[in-house]
Every structure is written in C-alpha cells, then in structure tokens.
C-alpha cells in the first residue's frame, strides 16, 4: 500500500507549510499513470491525519487522464490503458499527461 506512504508525505508537507494553523482541506492532483489509487488514498487519509494539524481535514483528489501525442501523425490521444499505441498504428508516443502527483492547495484556519 504505497498510498499510505504518499498520504504521509502529503500530510508532512501541508502541516509543515501550515505552520501551526489548522488544515481543513487539502487538494491534490493525481495522474492516471502514477499507480496511485485515489480510493486507497481516501481510505488511509483519515487515519493518517489523526493527531496531526490536519486531523479531520477533507482530501480532494483531482484525477488527470493519461494523454499522449503521436510522433508519427501528430494526434493527441487519451490513453485508455497504458499500452502506448495510436490508432494510426504507431507506437511512437510521447506521454503528455497522467504523471501528475501534486499537492495543489490547502485551506487553513
């Protein structure tokens, strides 16, 4: 369960930045190519936040699709799975999105 490790890093970062203030909400961006399962993050969020300055905070997850540009025909595609193949037959794709694993913002009081 690497989502727990991910969630712990998010909590560390937001609590450090909150600097003693109460964290009420955290927004993160998770790409489809990161192998991070949003449901699993939510599952361990509450427990991991317990006792920190983000205890009880909401976690908002913005999911981002996997996208790529075909170097052969120039098409921009959304990838349904991780198989790098363009409808034109080319496998020469440059991944343009889906690797995001970012803390976007937080709400503090």
């Amino acid at each position, binding site marked *: *369960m*690497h989502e727990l*490790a*991910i969630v712990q*890093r*998010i909590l*560390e*970062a*937001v609590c450090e*930045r*909150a600097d003693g*203030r*109460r964290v*009420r*909400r955290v927004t*993160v961006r998770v790409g489809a*190519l*990161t*192998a*991070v399962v949003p449901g699993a993050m939510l599952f361990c969020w509450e427990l991991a936040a317990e006792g920190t300055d983000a205890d009880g905070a909401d976690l908002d997850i913005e999911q981002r699709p996997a996208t790529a540009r075909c170097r052969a025909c120039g098409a921009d595609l959304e990838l349904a*799975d*991780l*198989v*790098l*193949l363009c409808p034109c037959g080319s*496998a*020469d794709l440059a991944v343009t999105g889906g690797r995001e*694993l*970012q*803390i*976007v*913002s*937080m*709400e*503090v*009081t």
Partner: protein
Amino acid sequence: MCATCGCGPHHHETVTLEQRVLAKNDALARANRVRLAGRGIRAVNLMSSPGSGKTTLLERTVRDLNGRRPVAVIEGDQETRLDADRLRATGCAVTQVNTGAGCHLDAAMVGDALDRLDPADGTLLFIENVGNLVCPALFDLGEDGKVVIVSVTEGADKPLKYPYMFAAADLVVVNKLDLLPYVDFDLDACRAHVSAVNPRASLVTLSATRGDDIGSWYEWLLLN
C-alpha cells in the same frame, strides 16, 4: 460561524502549494545520484514480485563479477532476513535495510544504507527492492538503472497487469528459462507486451540457477 466546516468565527485561507508530493524523495534521490556518480559507482535497482529470482540472480552475479569489479548489495527485501545472509556468503559487502511495514525502498533509506556500506570507488552496487510490482516504481532511489525481473512461472501478461513497473524499466529480465519447457509461457507475447508499455526497454532471458544465457545480463550491466 464558518459556513465551510462550522468551526467557529474565523476565516478560511486558501494556500497554494503546487508542489510535487514526492519532492523530498526526488531531492534525496538526486543527492544519492550525485554522490554515486562522484565516486564512479553504478547503482542498479532490482524489482520483481516475491520469488522471481532477484536474490538468486544476485548470488550468481556477485560470484561471477567479484574480482573483476567491486560489488556491493543493499538488501531491501523484507520477505526474509535470509537474503542478506545468502549474499554475504558470496563474499560481497551487504547491508540490510529495514523497511518495516513499507512496501518499497525510498531515497532516504538508500542514503542511510550508503552511509553504512560506504562502497569503494567504482563499485557496481545492486539494490534488491522489496518484492512488489507496484509501489517501488514510484520512488526514485538515485539509481542509474531500473531492472524488472519476471519469471516464466508468472505468466506472459505480467507487463500488462503491472504496466507502471514495466514502463519504468530500463531492462526486463525474463528468469527461470530452464522451466520454459514445463510451463505455458509465451516468450514472444511477453516481449510484445513489454514493448507495448515501454518501447525503450531492453529484454534479456536467462536462468539464474543454471546460468543459461547469463552473458547478455553481464553485457548490459558492464556496458550500460
């Protein structure tokens, strides 16, 4: 009273962070990479499911290469404590990392292990990651190369089931080639699946126990 959370008479402030979740790990990984490069140490991160043959391949590799080039191992597999002992028996420097409940190594653990191990200049350093085909893919350790091992007893569709891991690989090793006659494993399909998720990965096939076809592995190690 605050409308958002009912928490009392104070206002909410939104703080923009826009920072990578793994920023700290990535910074530590960069530090490891600089430290290793400065001493001519090449680090190879070995990842697979439990039982694919990471330790067996390392045992043979250390025996064959020791003497040609200093070899050292960071042992992160938590399946058993025996792996570090198996490798120590081959005569190379080994340090075991305790990942606790963790399912992967991270750059901080590798940095600490480097402090303890203090490998000689020019060492070929192997990092046996925790047996797991998902989590280790996310964590940069500061290695020069990522190797993913899959054995013929696991099924040729592994690369499609664990595309994140195979997408991160520089080299895919198909192990237990000696068992190929006894199992239903389509090597060509496996090759096609690997290149579907990662066209730039190299692939070698071998038997870690018998040593069949081991030459292409050493070639990759010593030339890359």
